[in-house]
């Protein structure tokens, strides 16, 4: 009995020794790379955002000027998301929202969209999706310019019935053989614009407290 206890203690001590070293190596790598990781993630975000918000539209630090918005059925989100606000000379010019189209052909389609303060779409991009490669993936910009069809559209110019693909009597293009994908996106974009119209003031409210918190 005593021997078993001693052997297990010895093995445990051995494992602890290796675990301590492993943790130390991991922790130091983490601290060494942390800043660089945050930097590249923000650069990637900014790249995506400047694709849909023309640089001429803002002069603020758009990555820092954020507001957390709760999950909302109009956006299709199930978690808190971050909205980025573009301002020109202090005046709100556009907001970048995340939205999810829940009813793609293979599940959810993650979108970001930029809405100008006038309610007009500055641009839409698909961030992630699982649509069939070669068939439903024309929603990605590198594959096809389809997603640019949303640029400049608004709920003021298009009636509710227009926010559908052409096959369903609406105004939006689609590609034969893959209608479910664009249908889901058009629906999600329309709903996000409704959300924007309902929450415009909250979205653009300057959040001074958060700025003060910045280190």
């Amino acid at each position, binding site marked *: 009995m005593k021997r078993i206890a001693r052997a297990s203690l*010895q*093995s445990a001590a*051995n*494992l602890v020794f*290796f*675990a301590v070293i*492993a943790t130390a*190596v*991991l922790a130091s*790598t*983490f601290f*060494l*790379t942390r800043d*660089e*990781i945050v930097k*590249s*993630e923000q*650069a*990637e975000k900014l790249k995506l955002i400047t694709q849909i918000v023309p640089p001429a539209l803002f002069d603020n630090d758009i990555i820092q000027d954020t507001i957390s918005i709760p999950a909302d059925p109009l956006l299709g989100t199930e978690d808190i998301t971050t909205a980025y606000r573009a301002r020109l000379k202090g005046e709100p010019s556009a907001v970048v929202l995340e939205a999810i189209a829940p009813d793609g052909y293979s599940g959810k389609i993650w979108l970001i969209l930029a809405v100008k303060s006038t309610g007009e779409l500055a641009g839409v991009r698909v961030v992630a999706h699982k649509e*069939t*490669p*070669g*068939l439903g993936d024309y929603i990605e910009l590198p594959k096809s310019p389809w997603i640019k069809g949303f640029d400049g559209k608004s709920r003021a110019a298009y009636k509710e019935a227009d926010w559908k693909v052409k096959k369903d009597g609406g105004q939006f293009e689609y590609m034969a053989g893959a209608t479910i994908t664009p249908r889901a996106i058009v629906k999600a974009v329309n709903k996000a614009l409704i959300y924007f119209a309902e929450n415009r003031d909250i979205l653009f409210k300057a959040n001074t407290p958060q700025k003060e918190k910045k280190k």
Partner: protein
Amino acid sequence: MSLQEYKDILHNGLWKQNPGIVQLLGLCPLLAVSSTVVNGVSLGLATAVVMALSGASIAPIRNYVPNEIRIPVFILIIAVLVTVVQYLMNAYMYGLYVVLGIFIPLIVTNCIVLARVEAFASKNAPLPSALDGFAMGLGLTAVLGVLGAMREIIGKGTLFSGIDLALGDMAQGWVLHIIPDYKGFLIAILPPGAFIGLGLLIAGKNWLNLRAEAKRKTTAPSSDSAAVTA
């Protein structure tokens, strides 16, 4: 250790005991990321680095780790190395990190890494162990590269698409459009294409082996010793 032994280690990893088409270990990343050359080679190289490092770090402590707990210790070390590689890629190769995504942490569970550590590094000196890990990793990389090239050309008609993610913006123009105006052949990109492609590669290697065998028999019919040294 003699030069010949190092040569044998390289030969084993790259050809004779190739993890991708002979040992058939580590098939999960092999099939999942080999849709393009760039993805395949990138993950292959990341695996090779992890394997070389794990061989180099486990061989020196092989006599101090009690036999009963060697597997958890090996796994711990491999997991640490993979996480370090993951942090580094996340920091310095962000585009590629996003593309390879879940498959980087999954290198931990790639059985080829543990298999080489257990079969080689736990019995040999650090230098040959590191070389063995690296050679095995390169063997895997070669298979991933060839399979990726096959699937990419047949599936998309291009080569090296996404190379700018690995090498930066300057590589943007390096994508080769092998077949202009290609409509794509979906099955090559989807998982079945990976299985079919791998099957063809294995068949190809076996064919080359058989041919070498036959040639050896015809050129040196009687003298076995000559064949062995050749």
